[in-house]
C-alpha cells in the first residue's frame, strides 16, 4: 500500500512525542478520521504503526502481548532498547517467509536510558534516532526537523514543532490529512496529548497572513 499515512516522532527533555495521522483510508476511500495508530506497548512504551492495514494491528498487538508475557515471566519490564531489538527480530525472522508490511516508530522511557525513539521499517532496519518519520510526509517533516529540532526541547516546544510539521503537510502535501493524534511517553507513562490545546495555537491556514509559517 502506498505510504500516504504519516507518522513521526521526536525525543525531548525527558519525554518522547509520537504523532500519527488519524485517517483510515483504502484507495480513494476515507473510512474514518479518528483512527488511533499509536498503541501503548507497556507502561512506558508506545508504538506508532503504518503500513498494510491488517498487518499493522496484528503486529502491534503481537508485540504488546509478547512483552506482557516477558514481563510476567521475568518480573521486570524489558528496556526500550531490548523491546526495539525484539521487535526487529520478529520482523527480520518473518522477512524471508511472510513479511509484515509494517513501518513503525517505537517510543520508550527508561530510568537508565532516558527517553528514546526507535525507527523500524518493513525491511527490519532498526535505528535509534532523535527524530524520525514514515510515509511521504517524511519528505516534508524531516526537512523541518533538520532545521528546527534541538536536543532537549520542552513539551510545549515539541508540540509547536509538531504543529509546524502538520501545517506544512496541509500546505504542501497532495493528500489531505486534517486530523492527527499524539501521545507522549515519559516517567508518568503513556498519555494522549491534545496538539491544539497544549498552550500552542494551531496555524490557521485560512488566514492569509499565517500562510507563510516561519519560526525563528
Amino acid at each position, binding site marked *: 500500500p502506498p505510504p500516504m499515512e504519516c507518522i513521526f516522532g521526536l525525543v525531548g527533555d525527558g519525554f518522547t512525542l509520537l504523532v500519527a495521522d488519524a485517517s483510515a483510508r483504502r484507495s480513494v476511500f476515507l473510512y474514518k478520521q479518528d483512527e488511533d495508530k499509536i498503541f501503548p506497548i507497556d507502561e512506558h512504551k508506545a508504538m506508532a504503526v503504518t503500513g498494510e492495514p491488517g498487518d499493522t494491528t496484528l503486529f502491534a*498487538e*503481537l508485540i504488546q*502481548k*509478547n512483552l*506482557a*508475557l516477558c514481563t*510476567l*515471566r521475568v518480573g521486570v519490564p524489558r528496556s526500550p532498547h531490548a523491546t526495539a531489538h525484539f521487535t526487529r527480530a520478529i520482523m527480520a525472522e518473518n522477512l524471508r517467509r511472510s513479511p509484515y508490511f509494517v513501518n513503525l516508530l517505537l517510543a520508550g522511557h527508561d530510568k537508565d536510558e532516558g527517553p528514546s525513539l526507535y525507527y523500524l521499517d518493513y525491511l527490519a532496519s532498526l535505528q535509534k534516532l532523535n527524530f524520525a518519520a514514515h510515509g511521504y510526509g517524511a519528505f516534508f517533516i524531516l526537512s523541518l526537523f533538520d532545521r528546527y529540532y534541538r536536543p532537549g526541547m520542552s513539551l510545549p516546544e515539541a508540540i509547536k514543532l509538531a504543529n509546524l510539521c502538520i501545517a506544512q503537510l496541509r500546505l504542501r502535501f497532495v493528500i489531505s490529512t486534517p486530523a492527527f493524534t499524539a501521545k507522549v511517553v515519559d516517567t508518568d507513562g503513556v498519555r494522549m496529548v491534545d496538539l491544539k490545546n497544549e498552550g500552542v495555537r494551531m496555524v490557521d491556514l485560512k488566514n492569509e497572513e499565517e500562510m507563510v509559517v516561519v519560526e525563528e
Partner: protein
Amino acid sequence: LKEQVYIQMSYDTAITVFAPNGHLFQVDYAFEAVKRGACTIGIKTNDSIILAVEKKAIGKLQDPRANTKIFQLDEHISMSCAGLTADARVLANIARLECQYYRFNYEEAPSVTYIAKNIAKIKQKYTQRGGVRPFGLSCLIIGFDQNGEPNLYLTEPSGSYSLWKANALGKNAKTVQEFLEKHVKDQITHEEGIKLAVQALLEVVESGSNKVEIAYMKKGETLSYLSEEKIDTLISEIESAQQAKQENIDKMAQLST
C-alpha cells in the same frame, strides 16, 4: 542374512494406566507429592482473595528472593501451588502464555474461570498422554471474574477443578482445613481474612515473618504482597491474643479447682 529387528522408541508407552480397582496410580501418587508440599492457603473475602504460603527453611547462604511459590499469571490472576515446585514453574509458564494468547485473540482480559479450566485441562491431558507423568501439583488460582466477583479455584493433579471459599493444600492441610471450616464465615472483610490466613498458617508453621509469605488481590488491582513488618506485627498480635486466652483458661481452671 541375519534378520535384524529394529525397535522404534516412540512416545506411546502409557505411564498412567488404570488399576483393577479403577484407580490411576500415577495420579494417586501425584496427590501424595502434593501432600508433601509446603502448606498453601487461600481465603476469599468480601472484596479480595488472599494467598498465604509457607516458606520452607532455606540455607544460611541462600538468597530468599528466588524462593517464591506465588506466581502472577496476568494482571488480575495469580496462582500458588503445593507439590513439586519445578512443575509449578512449567505450569505457570503455560498459564501465562495462555493468558496472553487469549488477550491476543480477543483483546480483552481472560476471566479467572477460563484460566483455571485451562490449567485443569492441561493437567488432565498429562494423565492421558503417552510418555509423560502427571503434574505433581495442586493449584490455588485467584482472580476476579467478569462480574467483579472474587474467585478461588482449586485444580488437582487429576485435572479436576472446584470453586472454594477457603482451602488449604500441602503438609498438614487437614489441620488447616479444620481451622478454616471453623473460622471462615460467609461475610469476612479483607483485614479479617488476612488475620485468619496468618492464624491458619501459624497452626502448622513456625512463627516468624521469614517463614510466611502473604499476597492478596483486590478488585481492579494487581497482586500485592504483605510486607515483612506487617506480618511480624500480625504474628505478635495473634500470639499475644493467644497467650491472653491461654492465661484466661488457666485462671478459670485454677478457680474451678
